[in-house]
């Protein structure tokens, strides 16, 4: 289920040069799984902006977003107290109903945020959580410490080697010899594709697509899977490894 609601900005703060974190107060009852997203109406923009839920509790949502265009730029200028019109509870989210015992979470860039809520949930279910985070360069890293603070084992890779392992998340997974029996991933398409090819284990991946509505009405975001057409906004954004067609 999804709903429209008004949310009040509690905090809006910079994490890196271009990445911001926003916390919003309001009704969170429609959010049921990590990896779901919200769709944000912005003044003067016709379409809403989809942003993954990084974390949530009763009455509070945390979003992490990168300023890439006019919409996210506008978000970064909003101040506490301002109100936003959100659709919440969108998408399927990650499913933790599986018998994985040693899950690996793989995030790249602004694909990292939805893994945070997921990590919290997996840890709460008593599973040890291995996390690999990939960034371009040290200055772009965020949430490394937050994942550690949760109790995850965190490995960082940077493309330029300025921090952690030099290379991509796949380099890190291979290099660090990480032990896992299942993975959850979110990040840019090339990362997901490389990961898909690099690991044998089963897992889930979260995808992005340009959206008209975000709740399944417009067919703007459809992709083909081995089990038929799926709307990224509704049957996605998370797909099972086994159904993905590249």
């Amino acid at each position, binding site marked *: 289920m999804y709903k429209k609601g008004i949310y009040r900005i509690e905090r809006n703060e910079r994490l890196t040069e271009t990445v911001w974190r926003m916390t919003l107060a309001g009704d969170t009852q429609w959010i049921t799984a990590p990896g779901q997203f919200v769709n944000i109406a912005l003044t003067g923009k016709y*379409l809403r902006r989809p942003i993954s839920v990084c974390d949530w509790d009763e009455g509070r949502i945390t979003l992490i977003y990168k300023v890439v265009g006019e919409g996210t730029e506008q978000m970064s200028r909003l101040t506490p107290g301002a109100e936003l019109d959100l659709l919440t509870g969108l998408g399927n989210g990650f499913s933790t109903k599986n018998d994985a015992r040693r899950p690996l979470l793989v995030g790249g860039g602004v694909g990292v945020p939805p893994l945070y809520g997921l990590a919290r949930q997996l840890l709460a279910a008593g599973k040890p959580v291995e996390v690999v985070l990939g960034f371009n360069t040290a200055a772009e890293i965020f949430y490394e410490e937050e994942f550690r603070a949760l109790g995850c084992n965190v490995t960082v890779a940077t493309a330029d080697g300025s921090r952690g392992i030099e290379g991509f998340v796949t380099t890190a997974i291979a290099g660090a010899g990480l032990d896992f029996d299942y993975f959850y991933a979110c990040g840019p398409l090339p990362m997901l594709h490389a990961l898909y090819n690099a690991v044998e284990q089963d897992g889930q991946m979260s995808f992005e*697509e*340009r959206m*008209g*509505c975000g709740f399944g*009405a417009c067919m*703007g975001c459809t992709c083909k899977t081995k089990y038929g057409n799926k709307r990224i906004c509704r049957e996605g954004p998370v797909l099972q490894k086994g159904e993905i067609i590249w």
Partner: protein
Amino acid sequence: MVEKVREQENAAPAVDMSVELCGVRLDNPVVPASGTFGYGYEFKDFYDINILGSFSFKGTTREPRFGNPTPRIAECTAGMINAVGLQNPGIDAVIRHELPRLRQFFRKPVIANISGFSVEEYAYCCERIDKQEQVGIIEVNVSCPNVRHGGMSFGTSPEAAAEVTRAVKAVTTKPVFIKLSPNVTDIVSIARACEEAGADGICLINTLLGMRIDVARRRPVIANTMGGFSGPAVFPLAVRMVYQVSKACRIPVMGCGGVQSARDVIEMMMAGATAVQVGAANLVNPYASKEIVEALPGEMRRLGIERLSDIIGIA
């Protein structure tokens, strides 16, 4: 106290929002447009869609269609481009799965939007959908700019549009509305050709052919390069075409294009529309059509309109 109540009654007299389209009575003229309301299912969790006059379901073809590659969506000032490319499960699945499912939460006659790539396909689909009890009106989309039939769509020539109309009318019993493309030099000649070919009504406008470029990547945003532009930006074009066509034809017009408020509905009706479709607005605000229905009585009172049907074509 009695005085007071009377005063309030006076301030808010009953208004009549009903309209009639070729014998089909709608409680109100507000009709979500094809392609922006799926087969109704996605909206039933937002609100009880029986508040609507009706709705037009997603353009349906003979075969199931995946549609175009993604990205299919681009943002514009006061609008959007879509290049969905008529993704739909095909007429069989619509009749077997969508209509029975719809019946569970929508008890009014629905408008069946039909598309095709040949005259035969239109006729085939319309004949089948005509037999469905739930269908009140058949809306024939001859205008989708994403789909090419020898390059041009049926909706860009009076002859081709008339041919489709004749073929469909020959195999149907329910009112047939032809939904026209605005990407033409002379919308009136096409509407009149359809009227002469037996159309019971005209729906307009479909989307305008538009394009955006991602300046960072230096290539079109839409995978298919161009797509259909709609939203509030196109409202003045839609009002103009509704006005022209309703003045030139005797059959009723469903107005569509950029409508996002009760005021817009009234403006479209004053231009000549008997019913008014709401498209992209449903995508950015899932409650848009409901909010418009709810705002209509107040707007009517402010403007001194007792019966909506009185203002059709009044401008």
